């Protein structure tokens, strides 16, 4: 059966070039980069090369990159570590649509008595910069706002936001886990102090990520017990993972603009086709500022999980923000924060493409999805035929 993977915002396939680059470090180059002998020394060089590849990828300097184990760790470190190291007590400002890797540390800060503010989003999933400005006026703040949303692909105006935050004397963190590898990121133009990115979202394996810490930004370590990573993160380095992340960044950097345009064209074709062939559908999120690979679309009167199962029967992998898929009883917090009406909230499907998708993939989905929706609507008590 055909296998079409359209869930690249969840995780991506490891690129063959990446696998090739990391393999020696699982075989002969297994030394500990901290060791003072040749086994370690030759490995250390590769770790530093990877650090440069990651730094180049986002317009940073090598010593500003700290390797971590996952995007969640990077976010936790950026938020909890900064708040711990802050000279004076700061407010924490974030948005209602962040990933749990930001919202959960925020909850922890709240429990510790910090003032935590979650900005609302409008029906396009965008925040109100005026509201942010008012909160910034309340005193020094750490602001954590994602570069792009994982569920809808909506891109926040991070450059402008960072400008505002820095202007108000705050510290700016951005969770770029979903943006990195999909759109160009250049920290020479954007004043973010901290930025998280994760390997498995850009064709490196799981288990490796990075946190960019602008020179001079104080961040207390989360993981203690070693001098590694400039004393900012203890623990023996995940060398194969780090080498893989470096290679993945280099690969992505080589072609990011062309790939973004190519993938966007495929995504747009998918979107237009679905809208044309399936009545009563709506695209969720700001279509003018959106990741090129992401389409979040709601099919009214049907439930997401049942769509996914039918798609999966046809070899198509996507995901849904519906309650039933996650086993919880509520639809996704992002969809709800945008005020998507409940007739649409339970039937939202996310298609997320990658550089490995082709026009044939899109055609296949466009051929098979409309009958699925028609069938489910014919079963639904709310459906119009």
């Amino acid at each position: 059966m055909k296998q079409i993977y359209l869930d690249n915002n969840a995780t991506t396939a490891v690129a063959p070039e990446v696998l090739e680059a990391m393999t020696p470090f699982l075989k002969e180059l297994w030394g500990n980069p901290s060791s003072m002998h040749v086994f370690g020394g030759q490995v250390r060089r590769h770790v530093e090369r990877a650090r440069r590849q990651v730094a180049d990828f986002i317009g940073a300097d090598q010593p500003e990159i700290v390797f971590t184990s996952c995007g969640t760790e990077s976010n936790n470190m950026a938020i909890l570590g900064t708040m711990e190291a802050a000279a004076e007590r700061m407010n924490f400002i974030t948005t209602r649509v962040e990933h749990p890797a930001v919202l959960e540390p925020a909850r922890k800060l709240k429990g510790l008595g910090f003032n935590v503010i979650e900005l609302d989003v409008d029906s396009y999933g965008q925040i109100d910069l005026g509201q942010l400005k008012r909160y910034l006026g309340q005193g020094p703040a750490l602001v954590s706002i994602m570069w792009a949303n994982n569920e809808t692909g909506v891109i926040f105006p991070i450059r402008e936001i960072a400008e505002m935050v820095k202007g108000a004397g705050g510290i700016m963190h951005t969770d770029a886990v979903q943006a990195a590898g999909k759109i160009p990121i250049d920290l020479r133009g954007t004043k973010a102090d901290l930025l998280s990115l994760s390997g498995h979202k850009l064709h490196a394996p799981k288990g490796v990520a990075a946190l960019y810490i602008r020179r001079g930004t104080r961040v207390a370590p989360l993981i203690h017990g070693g001098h590694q990573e400039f004393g900012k993160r203890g623990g023996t380095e995940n060398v194969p993972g780090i080498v893989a992340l470096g290679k993945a960044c280099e690969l992505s950097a080589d072609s990011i603009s062309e790939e973004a345009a190519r993938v966007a064209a495929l995504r747009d074709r998918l979107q237009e086709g679905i809208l044309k062939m399936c009545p009563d559908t709506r695209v969720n999120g700001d279509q003018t500022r959106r990741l090129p690979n992401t389409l979040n679309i709601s099919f009214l009167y049907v439930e997401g999980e049942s769509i996914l199962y039918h798609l999966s029967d046809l070899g198509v992998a996507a995901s849904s923000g519906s309650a039933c898929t996650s086993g919880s009883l509520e639809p996704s917090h992002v969809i709800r924060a945008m005020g998507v009406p409940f007739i649409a909230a339970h039937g939202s499907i996310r298609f997320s493409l990658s550089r490995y998708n082709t026009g044939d993939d899109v055609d296949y989905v466009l051929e098979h999805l409309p009958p699925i929706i028609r069938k489910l609507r014919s079963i639904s008590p709310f459906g119009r035929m």
Partner: protein
Amino acid sequence: MWEYTDKVLDHFRNPRNVGVIDNPDGSGEVGSMACGDALKLTFKLDANKRIAEAKFQTFGCASAIASSSALTEMIKGKTLEEAEKITNQDIADYLGGLPEQKMHCSVMGREALELAIHNYRTGDTSGKILEGRVICHCFGVTEEEITRVVRDNHLTGVEQVTNYCKAGGACGKCRDDIAAIIAKINGLGPKNEQPRPPRPGRALTTLQKIKLIEETLEKEVRPALRKDGGDIELIDVAGNDVFVALRGMCANCQVARFTLKDVVEARLKEFVSPDIVVKEAPP
């Protein structure tokens, strides 16, 4: 992905008896779009008062569709007295079992059947009746209903009850009450009540009162509403009258009235002042 049995997947992929019967003898509808699943069941009897035909329409996940399809197959040919005996467990068994978190789909089937039979006998078309004491305000589940799922399925824990009828699955305020019901049914007697924190008994300035009301809404009420995709906004405070507006899904939900009156008022009485009266602000 869930571990569905082949039978579940078969009934999901090839649902039997889809549709609505014209001029049915009985019809029952449960759930809502806000809750994420809904089922409409209709049936017709033959000359011998046996179910000759049964049809369904379902909005919901794979297991909700499969449960509905299974139900229609199970009741065909039965008298109403026989059909009435079908429990949600029977529906799940027919399908070779359902994941525990999906058992509420089978309960939805049984509820729709009950309502349809009730409709046949009384002509009542009012839909799901919230009879008896409402225990879970988030999902509008009564003591009767909880008792029923605990008995039918030999449940022993609150989490199980949530899996079977959603009660307790949002704000969690009702979990102690659910535990007490389970204990009562299993003959363990009522559990000792935890002493409640002392109430604020001080006289409040209006400003302090508004602040406290906001805090209470934020901590005690909103989390529950947000789980349902809704929200509540404080519009005005005049003396002890608190005007609020429901937003999002809650504004349209069938259990919104309960939410507003029972939950919000109870919480504000508890945390702010026993004299508070909650009113819905005009839109």
